[in-house]
């Protein structure tokens, strides 16, 4: 009985530790803040990107706002949409500029025709 209990406890312990560790990523603080696209899009102005420290964020264009979650992995910003899409965003100039790869994939260097560049407006979130 005791052995079974220990086995179950070990099993659950490993799961919990694993999930906790999986939830811990790199610090979001250096990239949290609000950003504005360098160019205008869809005749509706600039895209506003808000990265909050708690891992939530918004993408706004022409009054329409899309919510997402984000994290830092290997120094890159990963934006996760509700539908399962991923945008890989590469920071440059110490986080002042962000380049979002709009293909939904990762490319070494943002593809010129599918790249949205953001400039930091305010820090923190």
């Amino acid at each position: 009985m005791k052995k079974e209990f220990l086995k179950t406890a070990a099993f659950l312990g490993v799961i919990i530790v694993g999930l906790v560790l999986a939830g811990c990523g790199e610090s979001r603080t250096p990239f949290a803040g609000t950003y504005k696209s360098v160019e205008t899009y869809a005749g509706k102005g600039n895209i506003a990107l808000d990265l909050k420290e708690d891992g939530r964020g918004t993408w706004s264009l022409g009054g329409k706002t899309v919510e997402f979650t984000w994290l830092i992995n290997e120094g890159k910003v990963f934006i996760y949409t509700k539908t399962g899409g991923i945008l890989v965003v590469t920071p440059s100039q110490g986080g002042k500029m962000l380049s979002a790869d709009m293909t939904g994939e990762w490319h070494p260097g943002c593809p010129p025709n599918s790249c949205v560049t953001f400039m930091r407006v305010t820090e923190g979130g």
Partner: protein
Amino acid sequence: MEDTKKGTGEPAALKIGQIGLEVNVPAGTRIVSQGEAPEFFYVIRTGRLRVFRETEDRIRTELTELGPDNYFGEVALVTGQPRTASVEAAVDSKLVKVSKEEFDRLLDQNPQLARHIIQQLAGWLVAGDRRLETEVVHQVKLRQISWFDYVLMIGISIVLALVFNIYNDNRIPLIQGWGLPSVPEITVGKAVQLYRENKAVFVDARKSAFYDQEHIKGSMNLPEILFDIMYPMFHFTLEQTPGVKDKTLVVYGGTISRRMDVDLARRFISKGLKNVVVMNDYWAWPQVFPIVKRPPKAAPTMPLGWAGILEWIPVSIFLLILIPPIRRSPYLSVFGRVFLGAIFIAFALSKIMRPAVFALNVVDYGMMPAWGVNLWALILPWAELVCGLFLILGIRTRAAATLIGAMNIIFIAGLVHAILNHMPINCGCVGEVGEPVNWVKVMKNVAMVLMCVQIFLYDRFFVLDRGGFILRDRKI
């Protein structure tokens, strides 16, 4: 250990005190070796001796320890058979060494000692039978595998997956689109007619990498997975294009999963767009429409860090299986269990939190029907986690190895399908993006299957459930 009995009689009373040669044995000295011809009978005066057996693979089994007044070596002298165990001094010891001639003379002259040895032999035979039976039962239970093992692991995975999905912020429906209104369809023939008459706008719903590789000439691309973010730009482009207002919007690009095209059409309708349809034969468009085709281009590779290095380890199995003693080694099984367990737990944790991402990876392979995509994306990572934990903890290891091997075979089938069809997709194995699909990946998975086979055949060390938790009776 037939020649190593713990004697209980006192040597002096058995008149063996007057014969033999007293020898000092330093700690660590091997006094008799398994398999050698018997020459002496020994009585321990002082010290402590260790009795053990050793297999060809140098797996050592400690049998017992002997102390002062114990004796050993008598059975081999009586039977004339080679030593069946080895004896070495655990500490500095003092022994009386009796030659075969002296021992035979002693038995002839000392019926008390002869009777004592017979009693010892009989007792040992009975104990040996019991030990044999215990070992057989133990081995049978260890090798036993039943459907219950699989039901247990798959059942735990399903329950955990469903419960976790309820509380997960990133939860997904069990079946995508279940209960939602259907999307109007048109036949491919009708779509071709609209195309020729320029009465339709064609929208490719797949990821841009697929679109770049092959698409209907003149079509637009709006990847369904980035709909929320990209729709404003797409809508603007649509508004700016003259003459599209009254045209039919034909969405294409589905696979057997019908995920991209149907979902995108449904989203267009929810945004208030009119005349939205999908093609009923989702696979037919490359044959009947003018196509823009580019040479296949592999998805770019993003470095995977430690996980990428770890993945190379199983490849060493191709060398190890060439060496028979290593191939059959239970220590290799233990290594394989820990390695596969760790890597499958890592695989699982990268997918569990965001099942929607993994579901899209499943869709990319184009092998899973619509009803199975989300269920697979929910349950598979938990099955990886449960089997990985079972392997590491030593619970139901043969069944866990079978399931992990089966998963690997499915992965191999998916990878080969993707490679042969030049699909510009990510593996979706460890990383979420930038992980290539290539033959090296296939080789790594084949190596992991071999590791599972090795565990299935030879695993017997460090398992927690030896002999326990067997629901099915089995006659020995």
